[in-house]
């Protein structure tokens, strides 16, 4: 034990012999590791939120298709859907794109029936929409910041409708720590959304909720043998599109695998470049290292002891770099809220996100980062140490 402690001490002393070189090595490693850890953490956070989105969503999403593209579906479709066995609730929904403000900020407008809105909700500051003479809106954080909207703010008519336009009032704001997809949402009643889009009798999709165990049979029934009343409403032009929760959930693990593959491949390239840089900074062919090892050999050190000393140096530099990378990644995502880097990985986000960025620092990518940094440092230190330790001391000291 004392022998190993002495070796560990010798390894630490060897780090202190070349402080600037080792500092440069750690900085180079951290520069490569931090974006890797941040990217993986963001991706894991997004995956968690996507799983919640699937779990808390409807069992079936019923849409209409024409020419292979989704089009509006008549609201009347809801009635025959309610009669399908196992269906507990059918909710028409409007989700569409509008722009608001001088800078034409993109908005995801979501409309749901007023009777489906709960009386109290934690994720909204203020309240949800109620029947009113004004268009009542609940606004996402990014929009609220860009358009300088607060609870009580009023908006002049920003749409055209055949039956006239009304003022809109912000009655609630989504909380920043809810989810990233609220950022550009304007949530309102189905009636208001239909008015804004100047539509009546149609919605973008119909949410179908089923009793446990009835999702797959209901989906199959609607796909293969839809009720005649449904066919009558859709006519010959429209085709029914049904997406089930299971189908959407199946996309997520595939996404994870692809992410790990593509993202790790990109970073492997970065690491390859880093190896070359770090081989230079960490002592590949360094004259001092040769001389130092020559002196150690001349004073009685064995080759395995020299290599163990270098291994300790490698381990400490690699683990310290990985630990610093984790701490910096956490500071970047938690305190700086993913400043700048979130905009690279997630579309529609500026340099400073207005929502709390989702992230999860998982141990496996961190371990992977540590192993990679260990390999990179070992490439620079162990090989040159072995070369120097296997030649006669006189030649190494020359």
């Amino acid at each position, binding site marked *: 034990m004392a022998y190993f402690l002495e070796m*560990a001490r010798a390894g*630490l002393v060897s*780090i*202190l012999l070349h402080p600037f070189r080792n500092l440069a090595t750690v900085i180079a490693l951290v520069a490569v590791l931090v974006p890797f850890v941040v*990217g993986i953490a963001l*991706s894991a956070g*997004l*995956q*968690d*939120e*996507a799983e*919640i*989105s*699937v*779990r*808390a*969503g409807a069992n079936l999403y019923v849409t209409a*298709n024409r020419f292979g*593209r*989704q089009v509006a579906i008549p609201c009347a479709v809801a009635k025959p859907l309610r009669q399908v066995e196992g269906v507990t609730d059918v*909710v028409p*929904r409007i*989700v569409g*794109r509008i722009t608001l403000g001088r800078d034409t900020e*993109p908005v*995801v407008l979501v409309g*749901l029936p007023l009777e489906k809105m709960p009386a109290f*909700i934690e*994720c909204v500051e203020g309240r949800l929409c109620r029947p009113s003479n004004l268009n009542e809106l609940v606004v996402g954080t990014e929009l609220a910041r860009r358009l300088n909207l607060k609870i009580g703010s009023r908006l002049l008519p920003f749409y055209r409708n055949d039956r006239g336009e009304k003022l809109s009032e912000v009655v609630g704001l989504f909380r920043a*720590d*809810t*989810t*990233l997809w609220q950022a550009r*949402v304007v949530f309102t009643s189905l009636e208001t959304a239909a008015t804004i889009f100047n539509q009546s009798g149609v919605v*973008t*999709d119909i*949410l179908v909720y089923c009793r446990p165990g009835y999702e797959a049979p209901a989906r199959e029934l609607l796909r293969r043998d839809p009720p005649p009343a449904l066919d009558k409403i859709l006519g010959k032009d429209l085709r029914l599109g*049904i*997406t089930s929760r299971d189908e959407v959930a199946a*996309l*997520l693990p595939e*996404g994870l695998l692809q*992410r790990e593959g*593509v993202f790790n491949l990109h970073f492997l390239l970065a690491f390859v470049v880093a190896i070359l840089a770090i081989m230079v900074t960490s002592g590949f062919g360094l004259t001092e290292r040769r001389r130092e090892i020559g002196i150690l050999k001349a004073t009685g050190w064995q080759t395995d002891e020299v290599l163990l000393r270098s291994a300790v140096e490698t381990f*400490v530099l690699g683990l*310290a770099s990985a*630990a*610093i990378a984790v*701490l910096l990644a*956490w500071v970047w995502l938690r305190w700086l809220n993913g400043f700048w880097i979130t905009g*690279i*990985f997630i*579309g*529609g986000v500026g340099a400073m996100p207005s929502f*709390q960025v*989702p992230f*999860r*620092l998982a*141990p496996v990518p*961190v371990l992977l980062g540590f192993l990679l940094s260990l390999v990179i440092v070992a490439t620079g230190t162990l090989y040159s140490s072995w070369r120097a330790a296997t030649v006669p001391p006189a030649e190494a000291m020359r």
Partner: protein
Amino acid sequence: MKSRTPLILMVVFLTLVAAAAAVLVANSLSRDGRARRAEEFQRLVGGLGLGPATDLTRCAFRFDPRLCPGCPEDAGPVAGGSWFCPCQGCSIFYLRPLPIP
């Protein structure tokens, strides 16, 4: 007398490792409140958002495949356009298109 510098270096090193481990543990424990609010939001809107985008402007598919089952760029002028879709560039979250009836 032996120098104390290696000992100081060891303490700094162990502190760094302990801090990194604490961050990993704390991060896994502090997500309950956010998850509860996210679930509440998703129940309210009936499930909205799945991919690495916050709006529908360029690619609704990357926002949520339930709203648009495939990347619109695939029907654009460039063959296999989804691979050039800016929403996918640098993406850390790939989604396969859903079948279209």
